[in-house]
C-alpha cells in the first residue's frame, strides 16, 4: 500500500491519505492548489470544478479513490497553456472577472467545452457553463468571452 497514485497538473503523485477524502480538500490542503475554490461542497456551484482526464468534475464530489490512475488538471496547471492565455485575454477584454471566485472553475468549464466543441454556439456555451454559478456578472460577459476565445483561438482547440 503505497497510497493511490495519480497525475496532478502533469506530475505523478501518490496520496497516502484515505481513499474517501474529497479531492477538493486534498487539492487545497495537501497540494496547496488554492485556485480550486469551495463554494458549497455539494456539487451545486462549480467553484471547485477541475478537469479529470479532460472532463469537467466538481472536486467536492470526487473521492480520492476514484482519482487513482487518472489525470487531474487545475488552473495552476492549465494557466501555463496557450489555450489559457487566449481565454484569459478574452475574459480581460470584456472585464468578465468581477469577484473572481467562480472564475477558475468557469475557465475550466470553458476548456472542457472547447476541447470537444471548438466553435460552439451561444446556447452551447451557456449550457456548458450552467453548473458554474456566477453571482456577479449576469453571465453575458463570460459567455461572450468564451465565444470570442473560440474565434481568437482558432486551431488551438
Amino acid at each position, binding site marked *: 500500500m503505497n497510497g493511490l497514485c495519480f497525475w496532478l497538473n502533469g506530475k505523478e503523485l501518490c496520496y497516502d491519505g484515505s481513499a474517501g477524502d474529497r479531492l477538493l480538500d486534498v487539492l487545497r490542503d495537501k497540494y*496547496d492548489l488554492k485556485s480550486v475554490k469551495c*463554494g458549497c461542497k455539494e456539487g451545486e*456551484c462549480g467553484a471547485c470544478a477541475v478537469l479529470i482526464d479532460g472532463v469537467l468534475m466538481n472536486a467536492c464530489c470526487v473521492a480520492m479513490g476514484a482519482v487513482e490512475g487518472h489525470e487531474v488538471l487545475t488552473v495552476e496547471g492549465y494557466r501555463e497553456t496557450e489555450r489559457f492565455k487566449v481565454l*484569459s485575454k478574452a475574459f480581460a477584454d470584456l472585464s468578465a*472577472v468581477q*469577484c473572481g471566485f467562480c472564475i477558475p472553475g468557469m475557465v475550466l468549464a470553458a476548456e472542457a467545452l472547447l476541447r470537444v466543441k471548438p466553435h460552439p454556439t451561444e446556447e452551447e456555451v451557456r449550457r456548458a457553463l450552467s453548473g458554474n454559478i456566477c453571482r*456577479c456578472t449576469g453571465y453575458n*460577459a463570460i459567455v461572450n468571452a468564451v465565444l470570442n476565445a473560440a474565434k481568437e483561438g482558432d486551431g488551438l482547440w
Partner: protein
Amino acid sequence: MKEISRSIKKKDHDNKIEGRSVYVDDYPLTASGKRILCGKLIHAAYAKARVLSVTLPPLPEGYTYVDRNDVPGDNNVNIVLDDTPVFCRETVEYIGEPIGMLVGPEEAVVDELLAGVKVEYDQIEPMLDLRNGTEAFFDYHFGHGDVDRAFAEADKVYEEEFLTGYQDQTYLEPQGMMAEPEEDGRMFVHGSLQCPYYVHGAVARALGTGPEGVHILQDVTGGGFGGKEDFPSILGCQVAVAAHKTGQPVRCVYNRREDLEFTPKRHPSLCRYKLAVKDGRVTALEADVRFDAGAYSTLSAVVLQRGIIAAPGIYHIPNVRVTGKAIKTNTVPCGAYRGFGAPQTFFAIEMMMNHVAQDLGVDSITFKQQHFAKQGDMTSTQGRYHFPVPIPAMLDEVDALCALRRKHQAYSLPQTGRFRRGIGFSAIFHGAGFTGSGERDIIKATAKLRKYADGTVEVLASNGDIGQGVRTTFPKIVSHELNLPLEKVRYEHPDTARVPDSGPTVASRSLMTVGELLRRAAIRLRDIWQDGVEQEVEEHYKEPDFVIPFYLDRFEGDAYPTYAWSVSAVEVEVDTYTGRVQILGAYGSFDVGTPVDENIVLGQMEGGFLQGLGYASIEKMQYDEKGRIRNNSFTDYLVPTAMDVPKLIARLHVEEYPDGPYGAKGAGELPLVGPPPAYLEAVEMALGGMKRHRLNRIPYSAEDVILELNKEVP
C-alpha cells in the same frame, strides 16, 4: 463616449483568473509562522430561549472554547445601534445565533467536538410574525401636503397590500474572517469584507483596546452585494476574541449552509398602499411599510430609511404620508443587500400604479408617464430633483430594444392556449450615495494619494474591491488626471493601518464620492508634482452647495444629491400547464452618469439585473413555524444559472452629474431595483391581467402560477 469610459484590463484580472489571488480561506495553515486555528461557531437551536448551560466534551490540549465571558471589552458589536452581541447574552433571539466558538488546530477535531457540545435551553415562545409584530426597532413617519383632504376629495381610492420575501446575497465566497495577534500587541483582523473601518470600530470596542490596538485588512473578497457590510464586524469580533484568548491566529470560514441560514439577507416586507385618484391623476399616497428586521437592529434603520423615502417611486404625487417600521422578530437579522430597502417599496408602488391604471382602463405605461417626476419637482422628502430626469428618453430606448409599447398592448388582449405572453415595465431611481446627511455628518470621507520618489502613485482609501472594480477605476481616475500610465498608479486592498477612512464600500458611493475625492486629489498632486520626492495629497468630502440640508428627524430635505435612473422591461412566456415562466428577454436602460469604464459598468448592470430577476422569480427562502430557514443549501436556494435568462440586454444612458468624477453617479445597486415589478407585471399580464389574477408578491414561482390558475373558476 468619453475617454475615461473606454474599457481597460482590470488590475486584478490576472491574479484572479490565474487562481493566484489569496482569499481568506486560502492562507496556508502556517502562513504567519504560527499555526492558524480553525474556529467554528455553536449556533443556537431555538428561535428564542434562555441558555441554561453549555456542556463541552473534554477538550484535547490545544482546543479552546470561547464565549461572551472571554470578551475583554464590550460584548456589543458596534453597527448602527449596539444591540447585537458578539456572543449571545443570557437568551438567544434567533436560530443560529452564535453562543460560543470552538477553536483548535485540526478542523476535523473541531467538528467532532462541536457535535459533542450540549446546550441546555429553556424555550420561550418566539415572535415570528411580521404582520402582527408589535415591537418596532424603528418607527418613522413623514409626509407632505394635505393627505386627508386629497382622499376625501378623491374620485376613487385604491388600497392594496404587497409582499416581498427574503433574498440572500449569495456571494460565491462565503463569509470568512481571521484574526492574528501581532508582536506589538495589536490585533490584526482580515477577511472577506466591504467596510474595513466598520470592522475596525467594532473589534476595537470588543477588545477594549481603543482604535490604535487593532488594524483591519480587506482580503480579496469573493462578492459582497451588501452581505459583507455589517456581518464581518460580528464575525471579526468573534475571531478577534478567540485569537485574544488563545494568543494564536484564528480563522472562521462559514460553510454554505451556515451562510445561507445564519447571515443577513434582504428584509422581507409588507407594504400597505393607499392611493387617491381624481380626474385620472394620483393625488395622494398613504404608505405603511413594514420590514422584518429579525432579532437585532443591525442596519435596519438605514435600510428602512432608504425604503420609505422611495415609497412614492419616481412619481410626482402632491400629497404623501409614509410610515415605516422595522419589526423585531426572532429570525436571523436582516441587513444590507444591493438596493437596501428600495426594491421592496419600488415593487409596491410600481405594482400599485399598474393596478390603478388597469382599473382606470389606461395602459400602465401611459399612466405612469403622466406622473413621472421632472427636474425641479419636489421629492418625497421635500427636496428637489436638481437634475434632468431622463426617464422618458430611456423609456423610448427600451421601447426601441423590444417593442415594449406594442407588445404591452398586444399581450394585454385576452389570450388562450397553453403558452401565454406578457411584458412588464418599470421605471425607478436609486438615490446616489448615503441617505440624508450621513456622508456629511457621519462618514466625513478622507482619501489620499501618495506619490513615491520613483514616480509611482498609490491610492490610499478604505473602499474594498468586491468585484465592482474599484481597484481598477480608482487608479484609472488618478492616472487619467496625472497623465501617468496605469501601471504607475496602484490601489492595494485597504488596511486601516495604512489608509484613511474614506468610508464604507456601500450605497453605490465608492466611485461617485471617493472617486471624486481622488480626482480632485490627483489634480492637486499634478499642480504640485515634483520629480524624485515623496509627496502626499489629502482630500475631504464636502457636500455640494446645491444640496438642501436633510433633517432625519423630519425626513425633510434632499435625501440624495442626485439619482441614478433605470427603465426595465421583461418579456415572459408562461406555460399554463406547468407554471414555468420563461424569460424571453430582459431589457434595461440605465443612467449611472458617465461610466468610468464601460465594461465594468455594464457588468454591474447585467449582474444586478439578473439578481433582480432571481429575486422576483426563483429565489425563494422561508422559515418554518419554529423560525428555521429551510432553504439553507444550494439545492434549495436557487439563483439563476447561465441558462435562465439567455437574452439580457443592458444599455447605458448618460445624464452627467457635475459633482461626480467626469459626471459619474452611483451604479452598483440601481439595476436590481427595477426588474422585479417588471417581471411580475409580465406574469400577471400573461395570466390575463389584474381582473383575472391580481398578483402582489415576489418571489413568484412556477408553483405560484399553477396555484393561482387553480383558483380560476372554469
